[in-house]
């Protein structure tokens, strides 16, 4: 006989149910159906849209392909070899690391500062909280246009400002170094809404008596920030760092719309190179190999983050 299923049995009840349930084949088979019914839909969706493409990418990375992406000649690891030997690819790799590192560090730093500012009890602070989190609601294309206005040569906001202050005018998006700065700034700006919101939430969770105790014990505001605030929000910081890192590796929209990988490939990040090889030159085999390398790099760095940074995280 089957027990009636309650949606949330208490732990003790669950135990007694497990005891009373017939141990025979029927009971187990029933469990399996229930499990399949719950897991099935997401397994199907993940299978079609994640696992299959992943395996297909791995497969394609071992072939040369024709211009519609059908594999033609099996070449083994040759696609990978070509990439690793290519100085252009190594440059793209390097640019990606610079970009990702800067984006993560700046996003977290500015995010923490904004959140710290927003928890202060000041008049009108609610407006600032809304403004700080506003970029969460901005689409990439809108952001790109916004930043293009700011960075565009001579008529852009920044250059007009520079001109009025008699500072040298910079061709932001057409000078290799500055183009990188421009997309880093834009990406950080895009990230800030989410990062701010999460960190703001974390800061609000820190009990105020901890600051009271620290103040009475003689800790300056700076000391309190470093020795109370940061450790208390370290789990959230770690989460944000991981999410931002992975997100930065996958940045595409802003780059495509603002620099298209230029000038002179200075902002040609790994993802963008994948896009170019696959959809502009039709070199699907090579693009697949690049995708695999990117996936491995992201997984590796995330692992490193967990391995070394998580030790400094203190969960309560």
């Amino acid at each position, binding site marked *: 006989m089957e027990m009636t299923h309650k949606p949330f049995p208490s732990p003790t009840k669950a135990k007694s149910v497990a005891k009373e349930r017939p141990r025979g084949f029927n009971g187990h088979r029933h469990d399996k159906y229930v499990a399949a019914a719950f897991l099935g839909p997401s397994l199907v969706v993940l299978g079609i849209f994640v696992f299959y493409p992943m395996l297909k990418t791995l497969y394609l990375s071992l072939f040369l392909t024709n211009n519609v992406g059908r594999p033609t000649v099996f070449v083994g690891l040759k696609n990978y070899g070509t990439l690793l030997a290519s100085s252009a690819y190594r440059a793209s790799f390097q640019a990606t690391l610079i970009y990702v590192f800067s984006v993560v560090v700046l996003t977290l730093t500015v995010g923490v500062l904004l959140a710290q500012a927003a928890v202060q009890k000041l008049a009108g602070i609610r407006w600032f909280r809304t403004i700080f989190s506003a970029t969460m609601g901005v689409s990439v294309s809108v952001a790109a246009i916004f930043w293009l206005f700011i960075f565009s040569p001579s008529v852009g906001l920044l250059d007009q400002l520079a001109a009025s202050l008699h500072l040298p005018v910079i061709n932001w998006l057409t000078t290799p170094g500055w183009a990188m700065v421009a997309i880093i700034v834009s990406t950080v700006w895009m990230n800030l809404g989410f990062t701010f919101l999460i960190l703001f939430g974390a800061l609000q969770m820190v009990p105020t008596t901890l600051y009271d*105790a620290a*103040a*009475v*014990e003689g800790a300056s505001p700076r000391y309190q920030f470093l020795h109370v605030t940061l450790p208390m929000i370290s789990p959230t910081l770690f989460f944000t760092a991981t999410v931002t890192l992975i997100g930065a590796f996958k940045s595409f929209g802003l780059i495509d719309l603002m620099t298209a990988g230029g000038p002179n490939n200075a902002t040609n990040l790994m993802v963008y190179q994948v896009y170019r090889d696959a959809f502009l030159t039709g070199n699907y085999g090579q693009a697949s190999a690049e995708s695999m390398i990117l996936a491995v790099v992201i997984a590796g760095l995330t692992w490193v983050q967990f391995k070394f940074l998580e030790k400094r995280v203190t969960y309560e």
Partner: protein
Amino acid sequence: MSIELSGLGKTYQPDEWVLHDVSARIASGEFFAIVGPSGCGKSTLLRMIAGLTPITAGNLKINGRVVTDLPPKERQLTMVFQSYALFPFLSVQANVAFGLKARKFPPAEIDQRVTRAIQLVDLTAFRDRKPRDLSGGQRQRVALARAIASEAKLCLMDEPLSNLDAQLRVKMRTELRRLQQQLGLTVIYVTHDQVEAMTMADHIMVLHDHQVQQIGTPLDLYHHPANTFVGSFFGAPRMNLLPARVSEATELTLAQTLKVALPRPLPVADYTVGIRPNAITVLPAGTGAPCATVQTVEYLGAQTLLETQLPDGTALELIGVAPADYRPGDRVAVQLTGTLYVFDAQGRARMTLEGGVVHGNDAQTVSVADQS
């Protein structure tokens, strides 16, 4: 470490006093309790002394130095919080060392002070544990150790025992008192628990309605309450407050039933009379004394509390005579044998009638203290 509060006041909105005109002198080495019901402003007062809440009016002196506008860290005090305020990410010893590190003491001294403080609260075996791995009582002791390690001579405590279970709370009362005397600390202790205040404090400040009601020793407050609030706040079972009226100069009638002769005339008016249950003797009905009807019976073991009603409907709490078996509906006779406190219509003490007051018209009083 003497502390002087003169006319301290706090408002958040103009003219809405959360605390008004609080004055007190606390001598060095004293255990000073601030008691009152929740919302009376006692924690606010403590935070004002600590420097965590700005003082709106008045002056605060610690050891003769005006500290009214100084930040907490320059007031040379330490504080134990109700929630303990331990840093969850630090071990016991790091928690205790927190303030010393923030103040940049040399490592050797930090180590020595921390070790001693942890020893004093008997937590040496737990020094490397995180707060989450400690029981409530142990966490409380970590908070104490942190206060001890700072070696500040003034320690503020904000309901430090209220998160502990009843048994541990009783044990910690003695423990705290012992530590305070051993270390020669001046302690300002906030609590809503009158028993805690009575058992631990040298002096007690009673706060109610944003104002100081009375300051005195525990016995003072118990025996000479300045008003009805203090009278009913201290002592368990609580003081009965009966409506009373002086109809002729020396005749006081309680609850329209019990008549008491006053040794000295009081103006004809309505009064409130406070009588503690232990000041009333319960006799079997039919002895000629006025009767009350038992409503509920509470057995406490050593005592039996009777909730009774006088003929005019006034509630009166009594202590039953030990072996008797009372039931709701029983009638008992009452005789006033202990101290009576006469308060005026505003609740201020006017007169104390001490010792065996005989009810009825031929009432006599043994001694009289005039407080008007």
